[in-house]
């Protein structure tokens, strides 16, 4: 393993801004993994750090297969993480909305450009991602439908679901989309949580990445074969929205199988505790996403179901 400094930028008042990468093996560029791009992606960075640790161990045992180069970048945004911000501390821009980046552009465009230069040209790209709504998911892999994606490959992670998203204009500046366009098979692995470290789900994400690496002959690693991943199109998810605002009192959790009309949650009046709205399942299905904030606004997304 080589620890490399991939990008350095002076700061007017803080220490240097640095992005570090961990390179394993040599040969064809097989896999790049990116952890936290946002300061609250603790779980994502934690999974990456565990991956670096595991690969070091495999390397010492001679179980990295020859002929493959693997690059792991645990964090592209330590500055935000160190001060508890989600986005670039100075101007609140999101590095993951700046791809493919521009080396002569704004600061976060330059960071994205430098990062993208290092992670381009790999056969596979894995990003440990978070979602723009706060909540919990069933562990899954996400791919963008660009015409270049190969959904069969995503099944190699052995996670319960593979979600395929048709990109909106705003997605065209994300890493996943641009990786795909530049001919890397790109996967976003959702590690379940953001803002916290949950060891059990982190282990699941780590196992999924190792399983994928073993399947493609990058490492010698025997693991549980995982799930037979079900492919779901994002537009087929059934959204359950809040018809009223208030305190959300939840009676179910991600991965629960629910029946049509089943009571999923109650929205309570925050003053007198009365029930403002009973949230019920519109279809038979499985809870794929559940929002986790205690207070909900009217029209906010509470659940996304996979219809059975």
């Amino acid at each position, binding site marked *: 393993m080589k620890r490399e400094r991939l990008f350095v*930028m*002076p*700061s*007017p*008042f803080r220490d240097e801004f640095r992005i570090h990468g961990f390179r394993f093996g040599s040969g064809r560029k097989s896999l790049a993994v990116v952890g936290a791009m946002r300061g609250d992606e603790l779980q994502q960075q934690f999974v990456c750090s565990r991956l670096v640790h595991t690969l070091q161990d495999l390397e010492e045992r001679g179980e990295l297969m020859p002929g493959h180069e693997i690059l792991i970048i645990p964090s592209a945004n330590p500055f935000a993480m160190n001060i508890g911000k*989600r986005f670039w501390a*100075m*101007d*609140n821009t*999101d590095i993951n*909305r700046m791809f493919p980046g521009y080396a*002569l*552009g*704004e*600061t*976060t*465009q*330059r960071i994205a450009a430098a990062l993208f230069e290092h992670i381009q040209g790999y056969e596979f790209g894995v990003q440990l991602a978070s979602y*723009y*709504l*706060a909540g919990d998911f069933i562990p899954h892999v996400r791919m963008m439908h660009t015409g270049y994606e190969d959904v069969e490959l995503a099944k190699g992670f052995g996670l319960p679901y593979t979600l395929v998203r048709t990109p*909106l*204009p*705003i997605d*065209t*500046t994300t890493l996943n989309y641009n990786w795909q366009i530049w001919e890397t098979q790109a996967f976003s692995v959702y590690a379940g949580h953001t803002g916290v470290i949950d060891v059990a789900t982190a282990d699941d994400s780590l196992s999924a990445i190792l399983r994928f690496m073993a399947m493609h002959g990058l490492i010698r690693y025997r693991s549980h074969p995982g799930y037979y991943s079900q492919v779901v199109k994002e537009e087929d998810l059934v*959204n359950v*929205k809040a018809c*009223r*605002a*208030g*305190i959300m009192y939840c009676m179910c959790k991600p991965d629960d199988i629910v029946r049509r009309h089943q009571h999923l949650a109650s929205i309570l009046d*925050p*003053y007198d505790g009365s029930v403002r709205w009973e949230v019920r399942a519109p279809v038979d299905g499985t809870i794929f996403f559940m929002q986790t*904030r205690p*207070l*909900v*606004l*009217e*029209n*906010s*997304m509470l659940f996304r179901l996979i219809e059975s």
Partner: protein
Amino acid sequence: MIKTVISTELPVDEHLLIRKNSISAGSGKKRVCVVTGTHGDELEGQYICYRIGSILQENLDCLDGTVEIYPALNPLGIDSITRGIPSFDLDMNRIFPGDPMGSMAENTAYNIIEDLKGADLVLDIHSSNIFLYEVPQVRINQLTAEKLVPLARYLNLDFLWVHEAATVLEATLAYSLNALNTPTLVVEMGVGMRITKSYGDQLVGGILNLLRHLGVWKGDVPEPPADHRTILSTGGTVEFINASASGVFIPLIRQSNQVEAGQSIGRIVDPLRGAVLQEVAVDQPGFVFTIRAYPVVYEGSLLARVYREDNA
């Protein structure tokens, strides 16, 4: 008449209210909408809304049609000095045309479009951000330039910037409305978190001039100064000047300035070492229409935009 366009329940004893003042007179059927406050840190539009509202209401006999004023498309953002929608990751001006089945923000975006579409003209007023000063200007996607440049000229602003199309900009309010055949002009002026009254007065005069052109306003229109001219960007190129050092930027010029080749427009200094890190100069003569307002810069921070006419 004050109308509530959107009312969304918040958890504790409050509604998110998006309101407009709909001012009508005469028998004219045209409707012009003035909207602002998508970005909660941009306040220049507040002065415009106040002035246009007060001028029209005091001179209803000169109004023939309907003018609708929306001071705050993102009221929670304005109230909390938050550029975006509080507790929502995405820029509100990147989620249009919205989605009636989507989250609160997407639903709000959808309903804003529903309310605005069909207007004869929409003016979407922005004021940069806290980092940059902008001269009063109109920004027009090149795809809609043919239709919108002639209208934009009536605003008598300093600069009309016809910019390239970009996929990510397809999710703006203006793009979405223009795609629905509702002509929409985007004004950028001033700086975030402040009101620049002189720019505001200039735009108010321009809006009255545009309303007069549309036949909606029969009253007085302040004339721009005799030497005023609007620069149209299609006769030249826009150069971006980004910082090549991280430090503190000290501007040496004000915005709206003609600069000479080689002229220094500012320097980036190191307050700890008492040193100059970068002298920022322009290569060629031009018109500085954007200049850095917020002093702290990183490598890459935008310092200025300069428009240069192509040599004849």
